[in-house]
């Protein structure tokens, strides 16, 4: 297992061999509030880095979730579709969104380490 990386749009990516798990950060869930709807990409779908991959909705508004890395969707996390509050409960573990077969590992280099992300959050409070 490698280190978790973060995007500027508050997604996290955890690389595991040739695939990666993607979700949204705890900070993102705190900004969104109670999540009441999740739409995930279908298995087999190919997506480019920074392309729209999923939708989350709070009671207030809908937001897009982008994939921080290019690849093909291997699996999506049905339990968060059935009960979206699972994302708020455990955003960076059980609340993952999808697993993606990575096309280009070097894309990971453009993402932030946990400590860089901490700093990024402080510099960009909203």
């Amino acid at each position, binding site marked *: 297992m490698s280190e978790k990386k973060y995007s500027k749009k508050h997604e996290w990516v955890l690389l595991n061999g040739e695939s990666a798990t993607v979700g949204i950060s705890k900070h993102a869930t705190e900004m969104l509030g109670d999540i*009441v*709807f999740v*739409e995930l990409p279908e298995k087999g779908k190919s997506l480019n880095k920074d392309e729209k991959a999923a*939708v989350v909705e709070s*009671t*207030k508004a*809908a937001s897009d979730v982008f994939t921080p890395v290019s690849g093909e969707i291997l699996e999506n996390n049905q339990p968060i*579709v059935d009960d*979206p*509050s699972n994302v708020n409960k455990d955003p960076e573990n059980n609340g993952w969104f999808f697993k993606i077969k990575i096309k280009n590992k070097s894309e990971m280099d453009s993402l932030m380490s946990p400590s860089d992300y901490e700093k990024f959050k402080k510099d960009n409070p909203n």
Partner: protein
Amino acid sequence: MEKTALYNFHKNLGAKFVPFAGYEMPIQYKDGIVKEHISTRLYAGFFDVSHMGQLFISGNKFSEDSLEKIIPLDFKEIKKNQSKYSFLINDEGGVIDDLIITRVEEGFNIILNAACKDNDIKEISKCLNSDCKYELRKDLSLIALQGPKSEFILESIVNGVKQLKFMNGGYFDFKGNKIYITRSGYTGEDGFEISIPNTNVENFTKLLSDKGAKPIGLGARDTLRLEAGLCLYGHELNQNINPIQANLKWAISKRRREEGGFKGWENIKKDLKNGVSKIRIGVKPSGRIIAREGTKIFSSSNEEIGVITSGTFGPSVNSPVAMGYIKSKFSEINNKIFLEVRGKKHEAVVSKLPFYKKSYVK
């Protein structure tokens, strides 16, 4: 940006503020919208609605006739301390604002929407006889206490409020101050609205909080009113929609529906007689999809037949809920319709309103 007298109180409770109608208002507190919503339904919540206008009109025998020109109520029917829901109407019959009017000893008290209040006063003053006095009471705050435990909590602070029936009010004593309380609200729950001097409001609200009422922000206020099937000005109501289209015929008094005599009467008379071409409905999506304001509504034969005006997830009904306007011939309850969300059509049904059953004390 204006602030209510409770701004710092909210801040200390961990409120997240948003600009709303020129005021910095709490959208939510630490608990978040869903918990705040549930607390109101199961226990009690308090809402700072001091941004709303409290307009006092001192009465004389001319003021009622003047107000009847612009508000389609039968003023002779409104008893002292009785409240009524109605509207300010424009020349075409469109809604300038929706409001609650209460007859008090000295005249009338009208609660107006924050975003509309300045224009409302212009419209009202145009109708009033020159010797009628009116005043927007900026020295008063307005607190709503809503939920099944509201009566128990408020009675422990203000003696006698439990006698009040729904849509009735009266003056009460709070620590030597005269405050006006009505049994009303906008959440589908039993509750009260308390009009209290800015100088006392923090003391008073702190007592509500000490007795267990939770602070509730605008976010949960919206999910609560939507579940209760209640209109929000600027969404379900505006200057181009009349009360018949809004399915609020009941808020025009019987005598006024027969005799007219208010602005826009010709259009309203026509719609009362011939029916309306579009009407406000409740919409319940079949899945979990949330249809937001602006979502287009289609028939099963793919004809565009309407639009959503408010939509969210209803925590108490545990499903998405929405309201919108639809061509009348498609408005039958349980009629299957389709909502276009992010390019895809999703099944929904026309639902009866409210989505959540009210429990008012009659």
